[in-house]
């Protein structure tokens, strides 16, 4: 079955809900089978599919109506009569009717699409057993760091001492295994987990078993669970996979289980899906001060998060007094898992939802306005009906039926549009929005669309009804259809315009603030030049590259070959690609300063690079020098993670001294007013490291994050098994990716060369969520402005037309034409100003809520408010201009004679 057919089938199943449930139960399977056949025959061409849906939908609507209201057939019940009357009345003014339906379909469709996404990402419970009891526990450091990964000394103690949790487990994202021996080498997203993690999540494997507590022990961890996708993609869904041995980075692991298809937790860097889970199986408690664990837990039934939090507070305080050297001042914070997963996208989605709902409301105001105009024009008709004896209730039913016709047409169109919009959104959205791919037009979305349709139908039906209540039969019949002599007050229509303007200002200001933030972000100097740089990930398996020297040799060899490729001007390697997801921070001690109290040590981020790194990324060296090949050491690595860790072999032979290059912020913060070159510092249990140079600050974590103190180590002193090669070339596309692969495979044919992309793609990729949000909200703002222009125009020209007689009289009595124009414009501007005044408060409230989305723009930014108020005022002027000119040209003689 093609994707079209699967989507179509899903939609058809949903649509079957239109039938009464007894009918559905009896015939559902047969009808879907029949639909499947027709769908397969139609194939994939869009014209054939369109024809298919046209016939299917018309068949569906007609027969569903028949099944729902069988007794009405033949005997023409009141409901059918009302529907038929309403349909006639709507089609009598087809242009207006089509416009109203289109407007409704657009608003309902986009609102439903965004709702479906919000529902899938934010509202629907996580697909785990008892998701409400799942929490994440972070290390907390005072007020400023609320979410730190958990240290090796903390997690085992938390687990042993706490009583609030039925289970606790940990995840580490510090390995990236290569799968070899089954086709092309493949780099896997490979979280390491404790057996407790699998129990917390309530995993039931589709094959085999989960890890046992015994497999958490050091040396017992050569087992793996694989994802459904990997099992199908690489092992042909072979049921005999259990107990088979696979090679992960050259080491044998025995597969013990296959995960169910919907288990894709935890998401890897950039929201990728995990391929293989292996046990952590190491003495975690020895890794003191190494913050590398993400802790999940399941609350015991009946316990609240607050209760668990207060217990964890006490435990963390205990650990801080027992192990002050690594824990002083560190707390713990217990948070609901679902909230943590959507932390980054929640405000963006809610702002989007707010914007689309506002546009929906603006659309509704416009439609209501149109229908009011229509109702006004029909007052004569209504008056005649009342005079002939139609009960007001009867007329009300009639009007509601008309609203119903709009609701059904607009709602159906909206649902179809929403299905399409969701498909588009899920295919173009960035991968790191959790659970976005599960968004589809489901029962909840359809219920939402139906509710919105019914509410708007009621609104549209009731608005003319309010008008109808005031029909003064005798007066109407007397005056005929011409405009009234007295100026007509239309309080409802004027109020609608004010509301519309206010809502538009809210959307426009939100868009303005986002656009400004985005613009500032685009103009931030990242500190490095991403243009023309290509990045390639390499992961060296420890079986063949066990010795640190062999890892360094491989990287040197690869870089030398790549530098020889045509067009390449510089090639370097680093452990963390700039603005990628990798980051490492470490406590440091500055020589010459008193030893800091535990918990108050200076912190700095660090990155490991090769000599050409600064040249390849265009990072200027401001003082001292960069690295050279001569900086390589025999005794590696420099950083030891705990005091008992043995010194590396060869640490006592004469060799190059440990060196580092620091960024400006680190120089300024830790050596204020002095030249840092030649100064020394330590990182955890490293030997003293000498600063040899200062480089310009880079925004290595994200464009929006200010640079932090950071130092660079040489790969020759701190070897890495996982590196990213960064290659600057005159042309980044063309033959370069192939050349890079060939260069690496010339040294080692079994190495996966994955993820070849440009550094610009990485930088832009990080902005894509923000870019998407900004362009969508801006788009909504434009739609809102257009709708409001139409709304103001409609109301002003209508009221002006109603005042034609009055204007004629004024002109006849000697009023200047300029005054007439002025009067009309003032009328429009007055409404607009009232709307702007009402909208400013709402705009500020929304901006305040979403202030974390803004970058260097205040939610109250006066420029934005002033500029967009001016824009709204300007479009109001444009909208009143035409009616004003028409009023100005009124010929008093004609008008007075006609009356």
């Amino acid at each position: 079955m093609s994707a079209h057919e699967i989507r179509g089938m899903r939609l058809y199943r949903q649509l079957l809900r239109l039938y009464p449930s007894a009918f559905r139960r009896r015939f559902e399977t047969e009808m879907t089978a029949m639909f499947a056949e027709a769908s397969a025959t139609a194939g994939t061409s869009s014209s054939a599919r369109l024809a298919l849906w046209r016939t299917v939908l018309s068949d569906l609507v007609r027969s569903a109506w028949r099944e729902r209201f069988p007794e009405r057939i033949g005997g023409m019940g009141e409901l059918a009569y009302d529907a038929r009357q309403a349909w006639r009345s709507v089609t009598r003014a087809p242009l207006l009717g089509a416009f109203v339906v289109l407007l409704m379909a657009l608003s309902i469709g986009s609102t439903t699409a965004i709702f479906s996404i919000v529902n899938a990402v934010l509202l629907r419970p996580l697909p785990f057993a008892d998701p409400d009891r799942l929490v994440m526990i972070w290390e907390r450091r005072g007020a400023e760091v609320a979410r730190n990964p958990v240290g090796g000394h903390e997690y085992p103690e938390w687990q042993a001492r706490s009583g609030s949790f039925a289970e606790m487990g940990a995840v580490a994202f510090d390995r990236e295994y290569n799968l070899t021996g089954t086709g092309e080498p493949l780099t896997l997203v490979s979280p390491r987990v404790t057996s407790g993690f699998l129990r917390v999540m309530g995993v039931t494997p589709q094959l085999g078993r989960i890890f046992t507590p015994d497999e958490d022990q050091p040396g017992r961890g050569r087992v793996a669970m694989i994802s459904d996708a990997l099992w199908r993609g690489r092992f042909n869904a072979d049921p005999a996979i259990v107990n088979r041995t696979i090679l992960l980075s050259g080491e044998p692991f025995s597969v013990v289980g296959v995960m169910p298809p919907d288990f894709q937790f935890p998401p890897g860097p950039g929201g990728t899906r995990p391929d293989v889970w292996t046990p952590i199986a190491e003495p975690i408690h020895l890794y003191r001060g190494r913050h590398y664990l993400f802790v999940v837990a399941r609350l015991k039934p009946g316990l609240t998060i607050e209760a668990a939090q207060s217990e964890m507070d006490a435990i963390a305080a205990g650990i801080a007094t027992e192990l002050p050297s690594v824990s002083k001042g560190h707390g713990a914070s217990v948070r609901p898992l679902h909230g943590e997963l959507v932390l980054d996208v929640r405000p963006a989605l809610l702002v989007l939802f707010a914007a689309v709902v506002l546009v929906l409301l603006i659309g509704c105001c416009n439609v209501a306005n149109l229908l009011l105009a229509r109702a006004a024009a029909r007052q004569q008709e209504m008056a005649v009906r009342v005079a002939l004896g139609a009960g007001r209730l009867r007329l009300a039913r009639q009007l509601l039926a008309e609203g119903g016709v709009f609701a059904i047409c607009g709602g159906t169109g909206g649902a179809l549009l929403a299905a399409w919009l969701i498909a588009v959104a899920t295919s173009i959205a960035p991968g790191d929005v959790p659970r976005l791919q599960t968004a589809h037009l489901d029962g909840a979305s359809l219920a939402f669309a139906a509710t919105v349709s019914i509410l708007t139908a009621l609104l549209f039906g009731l608005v003319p009804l309010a008008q109808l209540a005031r029909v003064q039969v005798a007066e109407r019949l007397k005056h005929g259809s011409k405009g009234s002599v007295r100026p007509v007050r239309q309080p409802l229509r004027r109020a609608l315009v004010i509301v519309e303007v206010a809502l538009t200002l809210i959307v426009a200001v939100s868009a303005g603030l986002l656009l400004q933030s985005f613009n500032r972000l685009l103009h931030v100097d990242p500190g490095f030049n991403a243009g023309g740089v290509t990045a390639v990930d390499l992961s060296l398996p420890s079986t063949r590259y066990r010795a640190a020297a062999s890892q360094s040799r491989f990287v040197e060899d690869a870089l030398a070959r790549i530098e020889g490729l045509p067009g390449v001007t510089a090639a370097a390697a680093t452990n963390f690609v700039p603005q990628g997801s990798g980051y490492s921070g470490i406590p440091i001690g500055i020589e010459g300063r008193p030893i800091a109290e535990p918990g108050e040590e200076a912190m700095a981020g660090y990155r490991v690079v090769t000599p050409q790194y600064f040249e390849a990324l265009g990072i200027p060296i401001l003082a001292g020098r960069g690295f050279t090949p001569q900086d390589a050491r025999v005794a590696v690595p420099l950083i030891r993670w705990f005091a008992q860790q043995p010194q590396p072999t060869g640490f006592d032979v004469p060799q190059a001294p440990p060196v580092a290059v620091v960024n400006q912020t680190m120089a300024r913060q830790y050596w204020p007013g002095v030249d840092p070159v030649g100064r020394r510092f330590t990182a955890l249990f490293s030997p003293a490291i000498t600063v040899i140079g200062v480089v310009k600050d880079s925004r290595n974590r994200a464009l929006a994050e200010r640079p932090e103190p950071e130092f660079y180590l040489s790969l020759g002193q701190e070897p890495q098994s996982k590196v990213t090669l960064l290659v600057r070339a005159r042309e980044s596309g063309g033959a370069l990716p192939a050349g890079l692969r060939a260069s690496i495979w010339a040294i080692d044919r079994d190495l996966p060369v994955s993820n070849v992309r440009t550094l610009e793609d990485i930088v832009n990729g990080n902005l894509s969520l923000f870019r998407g949000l900004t362009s969508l909200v801006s788009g909504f703002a434009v739609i809102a402005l257009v709708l409001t222009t139409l709304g103001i125009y409609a109301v002003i020209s209508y009221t002006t037309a109603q005042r034609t007689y009055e204007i004629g009289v004024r002109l006849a009595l000697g009023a200047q034409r300029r005054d007439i124009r002025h009067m009309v414009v003032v009328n429009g501007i007055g409404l607009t100003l009232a709307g702007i005044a009402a909208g400013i408060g709402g705009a500020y409230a929304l901006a305040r809520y979403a202030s974390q989305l803004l970058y260097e723009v205040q939610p109250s930014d006066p420029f934005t408010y002033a500029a967009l108020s001016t824009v709204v005022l300007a479009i109001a002027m444009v909208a009143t201009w035409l009616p004003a000119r028409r009023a100005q040209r009124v010929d008093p003689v004609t008008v007075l004679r006609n009356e």
Partner: protein
Amino acid sequence: MTAAVLHILLSLAGDDRHGLGIAADVKAFTNGRLSLGPGTLYGTIKRLLEAGLIEDLGSPSGDEDDPRRRYYRITARGRRALEAETEGLASVLGVARRRLKTS
């Protein structure tokens, strides 16, 4: 008798069929002029079952057919109704032929 009723009965008068089979048969013997959508088809089948003009044979067990398919058979009553209807139609047809020829 609506067009859908007539054609479904006509189709079942030939052989027992499942829903999809009826739709395909009707499409074939009307040269594609009448295409029954799933809603119309099963809505009509439901009413025919209720009126006792056709009966539900359930899904055939054991053979290679899709188990989701259920077969329907025309009842004796259905056959009589169809005969009455077609006789009526035949006389209409006769009148139509004579009058169209003379005009």
